Each structure stands twice: as structure tokens, then as C-alpha cells.
């Protein structure tokens, strides 16, 4: 590369790459229009948005739009919930996803493999509203399957929708159950890309299944795992609105463990309908996500340069 550059000089090199740039142009345009142009809208978070005047002519409001996020004791609660759930789920999702991918990969029958994969992926394709009613079918106070079973065994029926203590577990279960199929696909495709020769060699040397995965699969999956981890960190200040709003059936009694930044924004602005305030919330989420991604990437590049994302 270095040598080529010296030989051909600037313009020659540009001409050489021109067809490729042209090929990339539609994509670059798309990226620009879809991802960069809207950045101008970030200013709405700092404005008293007035539809009549439009975005550019509305008056500046300083940090006024951000105030509502920190107005109550809820601020701590929702940030804690958002962060804690995300950290647990990112780590858990990684472990469960890799495990599921390895297990599926071990299934020999092609039909069975396809079957399991479809079954595991199925929940990911369901709407949260449907999932909320599936959960309700199990947890409903009057007719839920689990409620009735527990009532028959212990004599008292747990009031799932009134007691916050159950929900960290229920939400975690629902989240993993729903997400595992999709998380698994990426790991599975990486595993399929591993050269079978490694495993053959290992088997000849007498390595057990466990040793094969520990010493071949996991190390070769490392870059995929790290990439997904870093990308997931960018979403750490966001939450799946459907999961936190629909699945607990919007029950006030559960807010201590189900209120996240997104549900708070929805509830606070339901009646106010304020574009500036919702932009402010989204702005914070993006900034925090950005900081997390950059920091995580920095740390990774310190530890192992090849695995870093950028």
C-alpha cells in the first residue's frame, strides 16, 4: 500500500478508487441523509420549540427541557433501573447466547437444528403486546396458570401485578427468552465460520468436547463477543419500552422496578406533548451511550488492540 502510493501519487490513486467511490455513493448518501442530516435536530432539546416558527427560529431555552428528568426522586430510580437491567442483560445475554449457539451447533440432524433455531427465534418476532398477554396468561390474579399452581401448592396466591419483588426476575426471563434467538444467530454464524480442521486436530490430540470449546470456540468467538458487547453498551441508557410498559401492564405498584428512562418520559409527557422535553431525554441517552462506547472501546484497545472496534 505504502509503495503503491509513492509510485502513483495522489490523483492516480483517486482515479483508481473512483469506481469504488461511485459504487459507495448511494450508501454514503443514505447514511448522510438518514444519520447526519437529522443531527441538526439535536438543537430542539435546547429550544422552546414552536411549530409555527419552526426549528431554526424557535427561541433558545438553555437546559430547561432537561429539568423534568431530574425533578423527582424518580430520577435516581429510573436511572438505576435502566442501567442495572441493561448491565445484567448484556452480560447474561452474552453467556446465554454463546451457550445456545454452541449447543445448537452440536446438533447433528439438519432438520432438528433448523427446528430448534426457529423455535428459539420465534419469540423475537412477537410483538411485546402479544408477549404481555402471554405473561398475563401465566400471572393473572384471577386465572393465571402460575398463580393457580402456586395457590394450590401453598394455599396463597401471589399477587404478581401488585408486588414489585417478582418483576426483576420476570422481566429478566422475558427479556432473555425473547432475545436469545437473535443474539444466538450472530454467534452461531461465527462458529460456523471456524475451520473444522482445528477441531479435527484437537480430537486427534484427544481433546474432550469441553476442552475443544474452551480452547478453540471461545477464543475464536472473542472478537464477535467484544464487538457485540461494545455495541450493546451504546444502548445502555435506553430500554425496551414495550417490555417495561406493556409486560407489567402499566401497574403503578410496580414502578419501583419497572420505571426506566423511556417509560418515565412517556408518562411525564403523555399529556404535555412537549417535543423539546422528549428530545432532551433522547439527547442524554445518546450522549451517555456515546461515552460508554468510546470508553469501552478505549479499554478494549488497551487490553487487546485487535479486538477493538475502532
Amino acid at each position, binding site marked *: 500500500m505504502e509503495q503503491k502510493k509513492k509510485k502513483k501519487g495522489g490523483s492516480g490513486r483517486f482515479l483508481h478508487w473512483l469506481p469504488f467511490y461511485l459504487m459507495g455513493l448511494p450508501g454514503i448518501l443514505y447514511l448522510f441523509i438518514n444519520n447526519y442530516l437529522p443531527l441538526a435536530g439535536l438543537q430542539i432539546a435546547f429550544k422552546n420549540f414552536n411549530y*409555527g416558527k419552526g426549528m431554526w427560529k424557535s427561541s433558545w431555552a438553555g437546559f*430547561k427541557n432537561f429539568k423534568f428528568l431530574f425533578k*423527582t426522586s424518580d430520577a435516581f430510580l429510573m436511572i438505576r433501573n435502566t442501567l442495572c437491567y441493561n448491565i445484567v442483560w448484556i452480560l447474561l445475554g452474552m453467556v446465554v447466547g454463546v451457550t445456545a449457539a454452541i449447543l445448537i451447533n452440536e446438533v447433528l440432524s439438519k432438520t432438528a437444528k*433448523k427446528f430448534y433455531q426457529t*423455535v428459539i427465534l420465534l419469540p423475537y418476532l412477537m410483538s411485546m403486546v402479544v408477549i404481555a398477554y*402471554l405473561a*398475563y396468561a401465566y400471572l393473572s*390474579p384471577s386465572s393465571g396458570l402460575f398463580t393457580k399452581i402456586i395457590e394450590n401448592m401453598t394455599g396463597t396466591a401471589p399477587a404478581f401485578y401488585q408486588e414489585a419483588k417478582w418483576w426483576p426476575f420476570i422481566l429478566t426471563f422475558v427479556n432473555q427468552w425473547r432475545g436469545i434467538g437473535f443474539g444466538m444467530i450472530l454467534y452461531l454464524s461465527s462458529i460456523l465460520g471456524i475451520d473444522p480442521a482445528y477441531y479435527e486436530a484437537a480430537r486427534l490430540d484427544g481433546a474432550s468436547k469441553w476442552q475443544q470449546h474452551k480452547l478453540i470456540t471461545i477464543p475464536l468467538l472473542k472478537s464477535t463477543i467484544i464487538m457485540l458487547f461494545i455495541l450493546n453498551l451504546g444502548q445502555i441508557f435506553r430500554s425496551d419500552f414495550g417490555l417495561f410498559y406493556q409486560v407489567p401492564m402499566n401497574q403503578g*405498584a410496580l414502578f419501583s422496578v419497572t420505571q426506566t428512562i423511556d417509560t418515565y418520559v412517556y408518562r*411525564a409527557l403523555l399529556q404535555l406533548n412537549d417535543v423539546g422535553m422528549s428530545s432532551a431525554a433522547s439527547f442524554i441517552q445518546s450522549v451517555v451511550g456515546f461515552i460508554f462506547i468510546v470508553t469501552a472501546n478505549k479499554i478494549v484497545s488497551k487490553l487487546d488492540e485487535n479486538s477493538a472496534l475502532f
Partner: protein
Amino acid sequence: MKRKLVSVLLTAAMLGTMLSGCGDEGSAGSGNAGGQAAGDAGSSAGSADGTEAGDAGSDSSAGNASSAGNASGTGNASSAGVEIDFDEEPYEVSIQFVGLFEENSNVENVEAALNEITLEKINCTVDIVPVFIGDLPTTTSMAIAGGEKMDIVAVGLTQAMDSMVPDGLLMELDDLLAERGPAVTAVTADVAEAQKINGVTYAVSGYPYAAMGSGFVYNKTFADQYGIEMHDGMTMEELGEVGETLKENGIYLTTFGNSTQMNYKFANTVDIFGDNAVYGALTDPANSTTIVNIYDSEEMRNYYKGVKAWADAGYLPSDQLTDTVGTQEYFSQQKIFGTYTAYTVNQIAVWLSPDFETGIIQVDDGLICTGTAREFMLGIASNCERPDKAMDLINLIYEDPEVCNLLQYGVEGTDYAAVDGTENVITYEGTDNADHNSYYAGFVRYGDPLKQKVVAPLDDNYYDDLVEYENSAKRSLCFGYSFDASDYSAEAGAISSKLQEMLPALNAGMVADVDAAVDELVAALEDAGINDVIEANQAQLDAYLGK
């Protein structure tokens, strides 16, 4: 193969839900997976219904004085003396038409019928733009922000004037009204103050008879069957006795569901500021102008204690909080006896059912306040190209019974039929519009209620009743006032969120101790800054009254 498998699995999953859902009392559970979006829309629409809706009436014989202006005699003027330029190309005025999910298949015919009149009288054509009520605020604000054509907008309900004005969505109307809106000014004179914010008129009321009380609507067939006597002014204790009778017969007294509304307002007439009184309320609006945190009032505590007594006695469904069946559905399915609701002369129309007789009692007196006068209004979008033409059409709607009835009810014969033996009563039965899919404006009111027809079972007495109820109602001392909350949106958001957390359990009577729960709620609201908001509101109100 794969596709087959997926379908088998889906079927299995759905079967599983249905079976476990129908396990016990078969109450809420299954089936209703229709989507929260629809549910939300339904509930907002429901609350709209609950406060007003119905079908307004008319009385052409009441002949409003509006069209009495001096025609200039040149032929280039409307009957009200407004100069109309008939030489220009007719301008097309768009007007919002708000409903639920109706098809409105007959809109084009209605437009054609309207155009015949409007072209002749004000030289413009009409473009009716149906909007789903759940999308109304978004549709309007996005259209105006995006510079799309927008003329007459429906103001009120989910798209309140107080929030549209600071958002810059509405045009100032005072000059236009003075020049081109004599009929509008005449009809809405009594509520003119409520049409203003900071002394500037931004919208005109489509229901200037703003008196509204609190009532209890009930299943009259049940009442007759079980010998229940209902009368105006019934207290919660008396309704509780009714609940006992009903319980013996396996019917719930009422249900509140997972409600985040301040239901108290349906049982007691108060004047509130902001949704759910987030900016405070006047508990005795006809006599006092002291704004209080209504959640901290003794009356509110007693109301919640009353509801809890009902819940404890088993008069309310036990799984209200997770129930996804709305109150209106419960009522029409005859699973509950009745429900608190706003009381107006035509409120009963909202609750009618083909399966049973409906009755309504008034539990608290009517009140004329800013909020009710602002429920159904028309305004002009801030980006309207020809505000003069928009105002001409608004004026014609108020002036010409034919125009207002065409807009409100559509074409006679197709969209509604006249009821024999009456002057102004109509019905949808037996027309293409029986299922409301031909032309149905559920959430907007056009023009003068006294010129509009009225839907059966209301009768020709409606117009007298309406005027009489209006005249007998008290007027809130702060009528016309509204709080400018632009400096308090952070507090409003925080308060609103706290209410959504804590109100449902109180509303349903499902708290262990009402006093403790209310104390907790009040503390949370104060933490969110409700006292600062009320103080600012009081200062603004005092300034308003002192001027």
C-alpha cells in the same frame, strides 16, 4: 416444511394463551391482544366520550340573530354583510373531521353537497380531512411544522388550546372575527372569555352551552328488575346500598379499571387546572377562588374511602387493575350497573345500548367553566394561506343550519334519516351509517348547537332543556382564565408521572389504608413541586381577576 412448523408453533402458542386465560372466571384474560395502540386510543377516546361527545342538537326555529347583517346589495356579499370576492378562483378550505376508526365512505358526497352552498355563498370549496382522534395532535403539529396545507383545525379534547397556543399552532382570530365572523361572535358571546388566552382569541367554541355537572349513568332495565330506585343527588353510601342489592344478583356496581384519571371529577363538580388537576383546582368554584392541591382535600379522601368501601364489600371486580376491558364495554355487556360520568343534557346519548334501557341521574350541580367551554372548538392553523376564507367558512358554519348539519351529520337519506313526527330529530338506524362507517364525526362539533339536528332518543325538547340547564348552572368565578404553565412544564411532567404511579390503586379502592396512601401521594406531589405550581397559578389567577 419450515413454514408449516412455524404455523403449527404459532397455533400452539395461541392455544396455550387462550386455555390458560380462560381458566377461572373467564373475565379479562385472553383475546384482547389487539394492541396497546388501539387500547390507548380507545381510552383517550373513551374519556372524550365520557366528558361530552354525544350528538348535539339544533333548532332552526330558535333562529339565531346572526344572519341579520346588512347585505350590501351588490350580489358580491354574503347575507351577513361580509365582502366576498367572487371573481377570484375559488379557494379550497380544508377542515379537520375527528372520529375513531370510521371509514367515512361518503365524505366526497358530503363535500359535493357542501360545495354547492359554499361556492354560491362564500366562493370557496371544502376539503373534509378525517383524522383519528388518537393521532390528532401529531397529525396537526407535523403538518404545520412541515408546511403542509392546513386551514381549519379541530381544537379541544386531545388537542387542547392551552398547549396549541404556546406551540405556535394557532392563528390569532380577533381581527378576522370582527371583520368576517359576525355569526360566530353572536353564537359564542357567552363563552368569549374562554376562547381567549392572554386576551387574544385563538379558537371558537363549537359547544357554547358549557354547563356540565356530575352524574351516574345506569342500566335502567336492571334497576326496574331489582326494584332499585335511583334519584338525583345520590351519595356514595346510597349507591353502596344499591351495590349490595346488585351483589346478591351477581352484578358489579361499577368498575374503575386501571385508571390514571382523577375520577373524583366525575362524582363531584370542581374546576380543575390541567389534566388531572396537575396545576391545582378550585373545590368550590362558584364561591371561592383559592386554588388548592385537590389531592390533599378532605373531600378527596372521603371519596377514596367510599370507593374502598365498595371494593371491600365486593361491589367492584377484584382484578380491576389488570383488567383491559373498558368501563364502557363492561356497561354495554351488562356486567356493571353503571358508572360516574359527566352530566349534560345529551350525555345519555353516549351510553345508549340496543340491549337495555339507560338512565342517568345527576349527583352534583352543573358548572360553567373554562375547560368545558374549550372541549370542542375550531381554530385556524398558523400556516393557513387564506385565513379570510377559513373564517368565511367558519362563519357560514355558524350561520347556515344546512352547512352545519351537512358537516356534522352528512347527507340526509344516506348518512341519517329524519325521525317521523319530529322536527329536528334524526337517527342512524336503517341508513348506510348504522355502523358509523358512512359519515360520522364523533369528536368534533360544528356550529351553533341550536341549529344542529339532534339524534334520537333525544327529542325536540332538547333545545329548551339545553338552554334551561345552561341558565340554571353556576359559573366558575375564574371562567375564562387559564394558567400559563410554560415555566412549569418540568413540574407538570414529574407530577403527571407520580399520578400515573399512584392514582390507579386509589381509584380502584385497592389500597390497604386510604389515608396512608393519600399522604404518600401528597408527599410525592409536593416533592415534584405541586405547591410551587399552585402558588404561581394563584398569582396569575389573582392578576387575571384583578384586572
